[in-house]
């Protein structure tokens, strides 16, 4: 007779062999893959940096040609920002967050796997362009007009535009996953005031990604359309504006710095209290500072554009906000110092050492940050090596040091082995000294006027000694990384076995084995404080009464199902069971189908459409339930004490769709901001030769879609009341009305006397209309699939909230149709 643990292990195991490896959906497998893959990209980015440092070590060197140097610095920035830091930290979150909150897996395991495959394919494709010599070469920020079709007609920029857009899909997927998991799956008792700071930082960061990435996706889509379809968003000669790119890019780009920084701060906030043997000082203030940094980071983007000729008053608003972010950052530093000061540090461990290094370097990077937040100072050092020094102090000091701290801290949990402390110290000192030798001289080089992104310089400038010093420092850093890699290899081979909780830490991930079993926890833990493992009671002990007898049932399942408890958002009161899916290869096939679309767009736009078309069946195959409705009902009726199967309050379906709506709102917002930005740059709108839009027919089309939404609302209400008849009739009627709306859109644009490539106005209205049409098309497709599933009896029991969730998407599309009408049709008459 199998024990409970053996049964759980069998249920949560992934299938054997390569097929099983490709089908894995478990959060630890996906998290590990993210971490390992991103570290490989880190090595690639580091080699790119070393090549640049060799080229700059002396004046007039020819190690790299000018073109190769451009490709190297572009790929270095792109790799480190998009392929290493963000995916690494998301991967760490994917691995650790479920363990820290006492869950067995994440809310959407298959989506998780899909995100990883997208990330992998996009990263490999970007580096493939490097291998074949056509890597992007205009900087990681890709400013037009340099990157427009006029100045960069080659395929290099196409790689950046398509693969970065694709890559953002992965980042958004992971963010959705993290938010839904933290919202719905916290262990009983883990109310808002008991969430570990790492989880807070991951949650807030995920929200930042959801708000920051869509504008980048829109911007890169606009640039792609300019390059491939001949639109004019950034072509000043046709009414476009290159500054629009800068606004959209930096609206993503500046928060992106904090998207990298906040999880790093979360890592440090986990390590310091463990080393200091006391709870973190100022927990609530730290949460406040995480939230404040997240918001403020969205109000700083213009400080990257201080030299772009914007009105002074506008720049001053952003200078003020840039300086204000020092307040929450300072709170964090003070909290850590107080924790160390008032704690009992018995041993300087390697994670603690890296955390200390981080505090010092982060302060230094912050100080130069305040300097460049001042408009006049920024004008003096803009585009010099001073800025390179500043952001490397922030990004290496503020992010890479905590990343290493986190790797040393959680390596025992990942691998079941301890890393060598001695070699860890060697790694730290080599990296710390190497870092400062590399980047401190760059402050001085910046003051001496050495510009960024130059591939060589003349001896007469006198920049050689400091450049040589920086290059020596870079090799010291590389040596440090090599020591780390050898340490990892040696520890995996011969390292000391790690106990469950080698650091005597306080959070739930240390309550399970190292490495954890497939199901994380056999008995779902109960949390009664912020430091559950430092409490007198064992959080993973069995039930304490009938109210939580379901925990015993979940630890000893009588059915072959993957289940984990779901709880309320604010107080983490368990209110239903979540049924998680088994492994499948369909996320991989869907990612590959989508890849063909994104890579195909570089060949011909029609290939993009074909790729999109083959993605649909892959998606349907992924989502289509394999079990019969009768088997589903049987599973939901547990013979043991169990939580309800149907969510009484908030379902994962609804949370997922709500986050999708948020992402789409941000994307639509970015498009509409683009429209109004272009409109503000001219006196005549629409431009001469283009008539003002017809008001009547689009108004009728919008009313038809609103009618469809009303029909869907009635259908939803009836369905929620237990009457499926109205749903079966009204949902197709609503789809028909949405199709009519699509038809109206198509007819309107078939009849206009201009095309998307006529001028910037035409590009904007065609793109907005096209984007809105895609929404309507998606609406019809989603509703059709749900309608079919309902007809076959699958939308019942635990899947009933699906109808509520798709209704939310209907509301969004209706709302965006009103926005589009007000912007494209009404505003030319009013503004």
């Amino acid at each position, binding site marked *: 007779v199998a024990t409970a643990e053996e049964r759980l292990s069998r249920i949560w195991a992934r299938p054997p062999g390569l097929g099983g490896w490709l089908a894995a959906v478990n959060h630890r497998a996906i998290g590990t893959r993210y971490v390992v893959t991103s570290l490989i990209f880190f090595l690639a980015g580091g080699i790119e940096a070393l090549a640049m440092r060799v080229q700059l070590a002396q004046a007039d060197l020819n190690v790299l040609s000018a073109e190769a140097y451009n490709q190297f610095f572009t790929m270095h920035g792109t790799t480190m920002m998009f392929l290493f830091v963000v995916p690494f930290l998301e991967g760490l979150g994917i691995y650790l967050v479920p363990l820290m909150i006492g869950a067995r897996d994440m809310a959407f395991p298959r989506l998780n796997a899909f995100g990883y495959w997208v990330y992998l394919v996009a990263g490999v494709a970007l580096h493939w362009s490097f291998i074949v010599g056509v890597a992007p070469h205009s900087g990681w920020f890709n400013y037009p007009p340099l990157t427009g079709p006029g100045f960069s007609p080659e395929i290099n920029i196409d790689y950046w535009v398509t693969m970065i857009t694709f890559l953002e899909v992965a980042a958004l997927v992971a963010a959705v996953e993290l938010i839904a998991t933290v919202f719905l799956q916290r262990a009983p008792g883990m109310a808002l005031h008991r969430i570990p700071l790492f989880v807070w930082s991951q949650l807030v960061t995920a929200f930042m990604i959801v708000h920051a990435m869509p504008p980048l996706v829109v911007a890169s889509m606009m640039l792609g359309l300019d390059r491939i379809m001949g639109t004019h968003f950034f072509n000043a000669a046709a009414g476009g504006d290159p500054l629009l790119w800068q606004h959209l890019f930096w609206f993503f780009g500046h928060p992106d710095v904090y998207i990298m920084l906040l999880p790093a701060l979360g890592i440090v906030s986990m390590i310091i209290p463990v080393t200091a043997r006391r709870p973190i000082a100022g927990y609530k203030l730290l*949460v*406040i500072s995480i939230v404040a940094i997240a918001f403020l980071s969205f109000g700083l983007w*213009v400080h990257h554009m201080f030299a772009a000729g*914007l*009105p*002074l008053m506008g720049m*001053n*608003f952003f200078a*003020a*906000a840039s300086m204000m972010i020092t307040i929450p950052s300072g709170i964090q530093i003070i909290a850590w110092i107080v924790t160390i000061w008032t704690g009992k540090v018995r041993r300087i461990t390697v994670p603690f050492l890296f955390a200390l290094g981080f505090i010092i370097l982060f302060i230094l990077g912050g100080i130069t940050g305040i300097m460049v937040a001042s408009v006049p100072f920024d004008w003096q050092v803009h585009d010099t090596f001073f800025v390179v020094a500043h952001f490397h102090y922030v990004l290496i000091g503020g992010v890479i040091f905590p990343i290493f701290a986190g790797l040393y801290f959680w390596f025992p949990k990942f691998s079941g082995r301890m890393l060598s402390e001695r070699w860890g110290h060697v790694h730290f000192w080599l990296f710390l000294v190497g870092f400062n030798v590399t980047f401190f001289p760059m402050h001085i080089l910046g003051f001496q006027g050495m510009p960024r992104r130059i591939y060589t310089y003349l001896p007469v400038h006198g920049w050689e000694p400091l450049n040589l010093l920086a290059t020596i420092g870079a090799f010291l850093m590389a040596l440090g990384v090599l020591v780390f890699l050898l340490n990892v290899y040696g520890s995996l081979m011969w390292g000391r076995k790690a106990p469950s909780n080698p650091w005597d830490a306080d959070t739930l991930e240390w309550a399970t084995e190292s490495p954890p079993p497939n199901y994380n926890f056999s008995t779902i833990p109960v949390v009664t404080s912020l430091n559950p493992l430092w409490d007198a009671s064992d959080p993973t002990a069995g039930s304490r009464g009938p109210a939580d007898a379901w925990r015993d049932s979940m630890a000893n399942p009588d059915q072959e199902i993957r289940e984990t408890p779901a709880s309320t958002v604010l107080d983490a009161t368990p209110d239903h069971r979540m049924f998680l899916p088994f492994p499948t290869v369909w996320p991989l096939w869907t990612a590959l189908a989508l890849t063909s679309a994104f890579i195909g767009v570089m060949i011909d736009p029609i290939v993009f459409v074909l790729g999109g078309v083959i993605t649909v069946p892959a998606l349907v195959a992924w989502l289509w339930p394999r079990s019969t409705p009768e088997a589903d009902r049987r599973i939901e009726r547990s013979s043991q004490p169990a939580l309800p199967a149907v969510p009484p309050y908030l379902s994962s379906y609804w949370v997922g769709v709500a986050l999708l709506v948020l992402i789409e709102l941000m994307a639509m917002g970015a498009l509409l901001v683009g429209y109004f930005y272009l409109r503000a740059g001219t006196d005549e709108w629409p431009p001469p030769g283009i008539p003002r839009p017809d008001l009547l027919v689009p108004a009728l089309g919008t009313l038809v879609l609103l009618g469809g939404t009303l029909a869907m609302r009635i259908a939803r209400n009836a369905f929620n009341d237990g009457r499926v008849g109205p749903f079966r009739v009204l949902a197709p009627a609503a789809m028909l009305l949405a199709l009519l709306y699509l038809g109206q859109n198509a007819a309107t644009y078939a009849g206009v006397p201009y095309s998307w490539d006529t001028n910037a106005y035409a590009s904007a209205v065609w793109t907005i209309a096209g984007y809105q049409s895609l929404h309507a098309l998606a609406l019809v497709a989603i509703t059709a699939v749900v309608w079919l599933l309902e007809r076959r009896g699958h939308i019942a029991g635990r899947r009933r909230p699906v109808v509520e969730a798709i209704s939310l998407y209907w509301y969004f599309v209706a709302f965006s149709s009103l926005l589009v009408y007000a912007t494209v049709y009404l505003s030319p008459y009013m503004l």
Partner: protein
Amino acid sequence: MARANAGTPLRDWLLVYAVLGGPVAWAVHLTLLYPLVHVACAWGSEMVLHAITISTSLVAAGTVAVGLRYLRHPPAEVPEVVGRRVRTMSYIGMVLGLLFLFVIWIEAIPSFIGDPCLLPGQIMEEPHIGRAYPLETALAARPA
């Protein structure tokens, strides 16, 4: 006194407002202030900017009031875990409200002392407060 003992009724939406109201008010402040610099320049008056500052300040101040209210008169007869969570949310709301109220006013300083029509390279020649700007200056201030 009796009212204080009864505690403030538990309304989670009010606590969510307390936590997010201040940051959102600041976000609205900056989002509106920045594009309206051109309008202030064209109209020759910064009143539109000041109106936004005052209205968003009221929203942020409201979060401080709500946070303070819940801290001083927490809901009665709720489980301990809920009581502690409410206390945490009200504290966070109050401090965030104060912080973002401060940021709103720091950001508003340029609109009190600066010239909305000034571009880089130009120098403010005289105190401008109350001075009207010609439309030509406004058009020149638009992005190229």
